[in-house]
């Protein structure tokens, strides 16, 4: 059906770039994801301005104040207070920083590891590819939650440990996607052209491969961000996420877990925020994939 494809996108006088804003605009999930994410990012950046209280300030006599819409709640603490009497709204607002940094940080670490391995495997092929794919399979064979739990249990649950652990575990999708994309690019004539012109391996990677992989990497990074945030919450749920008293949404859910029957709002509020953030990140990822790298859908 090449004929048909060419007639849809004749490649003559119209460019994919021209079509792009329209595609951005017409992609509902992308817009929704982007809007929610923008709100959360704004929350994170302007947290000191938005938060009515210090998120760490405790007030033991005021423990478990319900949110304003429940009996016993008041406008002093719109979302109520937690088990140490800390203002829930302020913790939620500051918590956006933690969840976002876990997500972004993990995506950066895992992106770096995975993309490097993937590009090397795809570009060099042969034995190097076999070895890297072996490592990827070995990594896939290791149960993530179990290993993450073990590592965090050993090294203690600091923010850095959680971030590095998740980053060190969630790179395989980057590796697989960049490898597949690199193998395709590797055969592209423009890469051969650069090699013929005498570009060194780093130059080929930097000038020819990476710009073309960027979209796919961004898409995977978004999806991996969502994955990391969920996993952090799961680790927190099992008691080994970021350490208290950090206002991480996952940790807040974990702390509210004991009260789920009697004070369900304690986990529903951070749960809903986490849900919205992960949903937004996934929507963004899906949307970006449609717009930037439709070929990587398979």
């Amino acid at each position: 059906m090449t004929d048909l494809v060419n007639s849809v996108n004749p490649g003559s006088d119209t460019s994919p770039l021209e079509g792009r804003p329209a595609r951005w605009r017409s992609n509902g999930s992308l817009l929704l994801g982007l809007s929610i994410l923008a709100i959360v990012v704004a929350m994170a950046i302007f947290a000191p301005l938005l938060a009515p209280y210090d998120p760490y300030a405790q007030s033991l006599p005021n423990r478990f104040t319900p949110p304003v819409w429940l009996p016993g709640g008041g406008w002093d603490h719109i979302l109520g207070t937690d088990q140490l009497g800390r203002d829930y709204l302020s913790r939620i607002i500051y918590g956006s920083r933690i969840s976002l940094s876990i997500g972004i940080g993990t995506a950066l670490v895992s992106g770096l590891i995975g993309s490097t391995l993937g590009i090397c495997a795809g570009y060099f092929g042969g034995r190097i590819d076999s070895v890297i794919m072996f490592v990827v399979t070995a990594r896939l064979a290791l149960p993530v939650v179990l290993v993450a739990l073990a590592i965090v249990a050993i090294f203690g649950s600091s923010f850095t440990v959680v971030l590095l652990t998740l980053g060190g575990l969630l790179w395989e999708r980057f590796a697989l996607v960049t490898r597949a994309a690199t193998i395709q690019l590797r055969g592209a004539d423009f890469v051969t052209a650069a090699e013929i012109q005498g570009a060194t391996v780093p130059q080929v990677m930097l000038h020819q491969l990476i710009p073309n992989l960027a979209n796919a990497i961004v898409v995977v990074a978004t999806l991996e961000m969502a994955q990391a945030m969920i996993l952090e919450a799961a680790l927190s749920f099992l008691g080994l996420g970021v350490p208290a008293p950090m206002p991480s949404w996952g940790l807040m859910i974990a702390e509210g877990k004991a009260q789920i029957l009697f004070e369900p709002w304690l986990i529903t509020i951070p749960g809903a925020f986490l849900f919205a953030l992960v949903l937004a990140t996934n929507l963004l990822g899906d949307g970006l994939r449609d717009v930037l790298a439709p070929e990587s859908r398979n």
Partner: protein
Amino acid sequence: MKWKLKTKLLAGVAVLATLSAPAFAGKADNSLNIAFSDEIETLDYYQTADRPGLIVGRMLYDGLISKDQATGEFVPELAESFEIISDTEIDFKIRPGVKFHNDQILTADDVVFTLNTIKTPEFNARYSIAVNWIAKAEKLDDATVRLTMTAPNPLALEMLAGNIPIYSKAYWDEAGAEGMSKAPVGTGPYKLVAMTPGVSFELQRFDGYYSGGQKADAAIEKINIKIIPEKNTQYIELMNGNLDWIWRVPTDDVERFASRPNLKVDTTPIMRIEYLELNPNKVDSPLADVRVRKAINYAVNRQQMADAFMGQGHPLIQSLCNPVQFGCETDVTTYDYNPDKAAELLAEAGVEAGTSLTIVPNGTEGVAEVIKSSLESLGLNLDITKLQVAVAQEQWYGNMHDIALTNWGAYGIGDVSMSPAAYLNGTADDIVKDPALAALVNEANTTMDRERRASLYSQIFKTIADEAYVVPLWTRSINAVMSSDLGLSVGPDEFVPFYDATWN
């Protein structure tokens, strides 16, 4: 807004849950359905360490004597009577006609065999402290056994009461440790009829049980034990009537159960105490300075925490022991909440603002965070290092941390020789390593004379308080939530006497 709706839905769900009154399954057929959070490791009593396993063990096995928790007296169990012959010798008269669950009759040989076997290193009893004082057991006649100790041991009777069950020689020879864990045979008021290891256990009242002991005349016919790790699941099952009794319910939840129909809460003060250990031996730690340790004592608003976490008006402890324990000195230096004084002491000791300390939390959820907040208002940083228990223990004794939030149950024994103070004896388990204190402790631990011991321990507790080696917090209580028709109380030794349970 989406989440608002969800919250409402959830709130509605919680309200609905209130409306439905549970119908308890157990009352109808005189059985008891209970749940524990932790898995029962094994039913071989000498190999188990966690509370649920020990509790079930006490249903299955009997010791020579037992302790009356109400009076503190030692009362006969498998031994009809006992006589203390000397500092190192006790004679036991074995009760005639006691049956094992396999209908075998208990003899003095079984007692001698048990006592002589469990003390050996090859037997590898989980708690050496419970058995390592036994030198030998001899049969004097068909009904009398003499126990000889390696050295005078003030805790000998405490150990014999509940911690040293008597096994059947014949069954042990036949089945061994594995048999005891899979199909245990004891003389206890209940026998095991079915189990799925780690999942559920079914106990049946042993009709051949002798009368005369504390555990006689059990009312409940069947005890079904389920292991349910998640507290909320336990609550749901309790509210649905699938469980009749759960315990170790956090204080926060207790208040909510109290208002529910058909459920009642039973709160028992127990031997366990909670406290902060301050490590004076960590390299470069400001805690080496007694003024800093005192400052930390002053900085913490203990009563406010007790009110929040343990329940309004929960009493504090001032020294490193449970006041109900024999020898617990309560007249020691106290440090009431006084942040100004704390700041003053810190300034005096030259501790700079921004100094960082670490805390290993192994206790009530939230306490470490409140401590952190309290110290932060004095300009100190506190890093909460949550570690797996084994790692935490290793690092703590390796002097890698400044503070530990700890709790200690003293094996449920009401004597200070089981209090944490008794371990400040200069050995590996002593984080303080104060030679003067260690000398006192070592003397106290080997003295048989009660008055002498009391006075020695009094000095010990005063020293600990003066030197501010710990921040004593409070004694713990255990909350059990159960059907309001159930009569059952947890003992102060943290054991649950199910043989005393009744349906009203």
